[in-house]
């Protein structure tokens, strides 16, 4: 057996920022004062915020030490299901940091920002080509804001027909953001049960779909990692009753170059540039959640739209049916630059990305089947979902498996989601990991299953080699301490 990927080494304790420093230090090169002071009315002046005063090295060492307590994609394999933790290419960051990209003011006259507008225009075209949809706006700042854009379009579309609708169908496998986004637009979320194969049954949808239902939100491949094979029949039922189909594109990494989203009946969808298109997750954003639509819904997209006329890129505001603006400017442009760079680096090879992502997930599924309980034994797409059912006799839970994986040098998969699988372990390896690294991960999972039988205490105690051990989350919620003194 290979030695464990995880090893121990020296990391450092580090206090909170305000427990360091001394009044009068400054880590910032204050610009030269070349004008006189202009006194401000005393009644408006405050004391200034009570920030700590630190030297530049103190700040640098502080955040260096903190970073060493973290696990990132470049530390090791990060198979967090539904999050597509693929490699974040460094060249993308180089492009976003070019002064001519990072320094652009958003309200410049358009003749001074043609490069940025061209980039947005081309990125929207490429995303339309990749999905098969007709029109795209990259304005939403994250996946959930893309969903909100989609639900606003549902609402505006039905409004434009003079028949507002009140409900949206949402499968029980959906991300929690789906019902929350629908609710923000005043829709009542109606849950739809998936069948024994883990997919939607057209009959169930037909029973629920009525003239008061705006449409359905479907994640495809769904959160069980299974392709919704009845999607076209489902879409036909929804369309026949005047509804729209929303596609949550969180799992687009499985189907680039393979599935045409418009052909399967999707009317509106969002993408997550920070998942499929390799932009860094940043410890929780910034993301970017472009919204893609079919032709008939293009008038509802957020404004301004970037259009090309007479070889000049322009911003168009005059779209009377538009849902309006979602972001003060044009969304997370710096993230769009990275995704654009990624697409240009791969071109049609994006299909290979999806093929390898699906191959790797199926490989893990095949090798761990029988070692862990496979919730739905179906061919999977880019992720596979196991559970802790086989470990129950040893009183070992999914949480214990996750914590032990850390000690072995892996970020745990997504756990306890999707909710339809009790004790879910959702593994998404992505195309970035080599076969050897997948094998290391699989070996670690097998070893943990053995330990569950032979040394269950080891799993209950894990992790023991991390900066902190298991934390009291109940206490944190019961007596919230949300800022330092």
């Amino acid at each position, binding site marked *: 057996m290979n030695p464990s990927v995880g090893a121990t080494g020296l990391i450092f304790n580090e206090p909170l920022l305000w427990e360091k420093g001394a009044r009068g230090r*400054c880590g910032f090169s204050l610009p030269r004062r070349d004008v006189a002071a202009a006194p401000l009315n005393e009644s408006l002046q405050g004391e200034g*915020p009570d920030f700590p005063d630190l030297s530049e090295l103190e700040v640098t060492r502080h955040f260096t030490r903190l970073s060493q307590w*973290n696990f990132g994609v470049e530390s090791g394999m990060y198979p967090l299901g539904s999050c597509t933790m693929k490699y974040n290419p460094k060249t993308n960051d180089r492009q976003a940091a070019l002064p001519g990209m990072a320094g652009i003011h958003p309200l410049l006259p358009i003749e001074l920002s043609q490069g940025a507008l061209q980039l947005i225009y081309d990125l929207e075209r490429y995303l339309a080509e990749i999905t098969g949809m007709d029109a795209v706006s990259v304005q939403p700042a994250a996946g959930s804001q893309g969903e909100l854009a989609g639900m606003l379009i549902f609402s505006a579309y039905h409004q434009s027909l003079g028949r507002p609708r009140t409900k949206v169908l949402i499968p029980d496998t959906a991300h*929690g953001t789906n019902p929350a986004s629908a609710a923000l637009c005043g829709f009542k979320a109606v849950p739809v049960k998936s069948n024994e194969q883990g997919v939607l049954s057209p009959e169930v949808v037909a029973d629920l779909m009525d003239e008061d239902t705006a449409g359905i939100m479907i994640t495809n491949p769904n959160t069980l990692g299974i392709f919704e094979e009845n999607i076209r029949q489902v879409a036909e039922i929804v369309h026949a009753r005047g509804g729209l189909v929303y596609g949550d594109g969180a799992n687009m990494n499985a189907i680039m170059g393979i599935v045409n989203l418009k052909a399967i009946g999707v009317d509106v969808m969002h993408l997550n540039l920070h998942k499929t298109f390799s932009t860094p997750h940043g410890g*929780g954003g910034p993301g970017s959640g472009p919204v893609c639509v079919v032709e008939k819904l293009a008038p509802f997209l957020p404004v301004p739209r970037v259009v090309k006329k007479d070889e000049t890129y322009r911003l168009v505001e005059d779209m009377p049916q538009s849902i309006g603006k979602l972001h003060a400017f044009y969304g997370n442009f710096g993230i769009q630059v990275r995704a654009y760079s990624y*697409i240009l680096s791969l071109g049609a090879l994006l299909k290979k990305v999806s093929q390898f992502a699906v191959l790797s997930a199926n490989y893990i599924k095949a090798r761990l089947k029988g070692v862990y309980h496979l919730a739905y034994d179906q061919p999977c797409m880019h992720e596979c979902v196991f559970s802790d059912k086989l470990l129950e006799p040893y009183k070992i839970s999914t949480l214990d498996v996750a914590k032990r994986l850390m000690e072995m040098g892996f970020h745990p998969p997504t756990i306890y989601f999707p909710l339809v699988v009790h004790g879910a372990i959702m593994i998404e390896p992505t195309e970035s990991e080599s076969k050897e690294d997948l094998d290391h991960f699989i070996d670690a999972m097998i070893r943990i299953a053995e330990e569950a039988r032979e040394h269950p205490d080891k799993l209950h105690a894990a992790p023991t080699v991390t900066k902190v051990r298991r934390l009291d989350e109940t206490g944190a919620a019961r007596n919230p301490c949300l800022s330092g003194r």
Partner: protein
Amino acid sequence: MMRYLPHTAEDITAMLATVGANSLEDLFAAIPEGCRRKGEMDLPEPLTEWELNRHMEGLARENAVSPEFKIYMGAGSYDHFIPAIVPYLAGRSEVYTAYTPYQPEISQGTLQAIFEYQTLVCRLLGLEVANASMYDGASALAEALLMAIRINRRRRVAVSKAIHPLYRRVVETYFRPTGFEIVEIPYLKNGRTDLSAIAGSGELAAVAVQSPNFFGCIEELNAAEAAIHADPKTLFITAFSEPLAYGLLKSPGSMGADIACGEGQSFGIPRSFGGPGLGMFASRMQYVRNMPGRLIGQTRDVDGKRGYVLTLATREQHIRREKATSNICSNQGLCATMSVMYMASVGGTGIRELAALNRDKAEYLKNAFAQAGFSLPFTAPTFNEFVVKFPAGFDAIYRRLLEKKIVAGLPLAPYYPELSNHYLFCVTETSSREDLDQLVKEVRA
């Protein structure tokens, strides 16, 4: 071979054998024929790393940026110096490539940094609890107004017309399907919000003002507070687009604001054509359970060691689903991290001096314009932005200055039709006195 894809032909063969598939295409057998794409994707030929560099440098050249251009434009996107350590530290891959800290034992770096961010935002804004960030200043304001409606169950909000016009448009988008009503409060001749209009606006869930407001004017928050809290159920929301102002000004919380929200881009984040920025969001502790967004809390591990976790998740969509306080999930984590690095670098002593320098330079330009005979229509005190009214026909001079690589402020007429020939100027620490003298000279010429 593509450098991001490690699969060799042998790997593929071996993996397919394990899976029991004959080819890569076989893996997709479950996808019905009618769902499939016909033909390959029509995308440009893949570029090498070196070709991409050249292509992107070409696009970047088509954008006007400082220092080649002198851009006296703020309006929600500010040119501030960013210390080298901020992008350096934020680029450390353990922070940069991690996701939401669901596994706290191996995410303490992100968690402590965001806890420190929450704390410094509380200290900046004078409030008790700050979340881990929102998308931008505009959506933060929309979410603040919706939060007020959740708290007091009223259906109407009032928003000052001196709030950033693009923020107000985002608020309209968020409100359109809800049936809640937005009332606009006019501004006075001095550039401040007309607080007398609040009393006649009926039963309000919240009143939002921005300070410094879109015109750069510092609002009288104490007077606003008195007018708004005349109805004790109404929440007082203070928005902002320039947080550096609070290095000098009284904080919103100390002036009685219930919620303060705004854009944090000024703190170590490049302008980047308007995004990613940082939605800062803070409120009084009593409202925490109605707050949108993620929160980091301090706790102990099994050995009693101090540590941090995501907390109060019962407000959030992955547990509450349609009953969540918001649908926000990924926020602007890395931008929040960059801003706490910036706040730590500048420090309490530094932020005071830096804020004063911004105001002093702006006052210098303001006085120079006044001495040159131009009109300053709004008399309220300002921070680093202010409005100048030029004689009719100034747009020709504006265009001529563009050719000289000077952007002489933001024309206000597209946002406020009544303010033709009014331009919003911004001066930060990045402008030298010579730059400002040159600007006035060019405008007069």
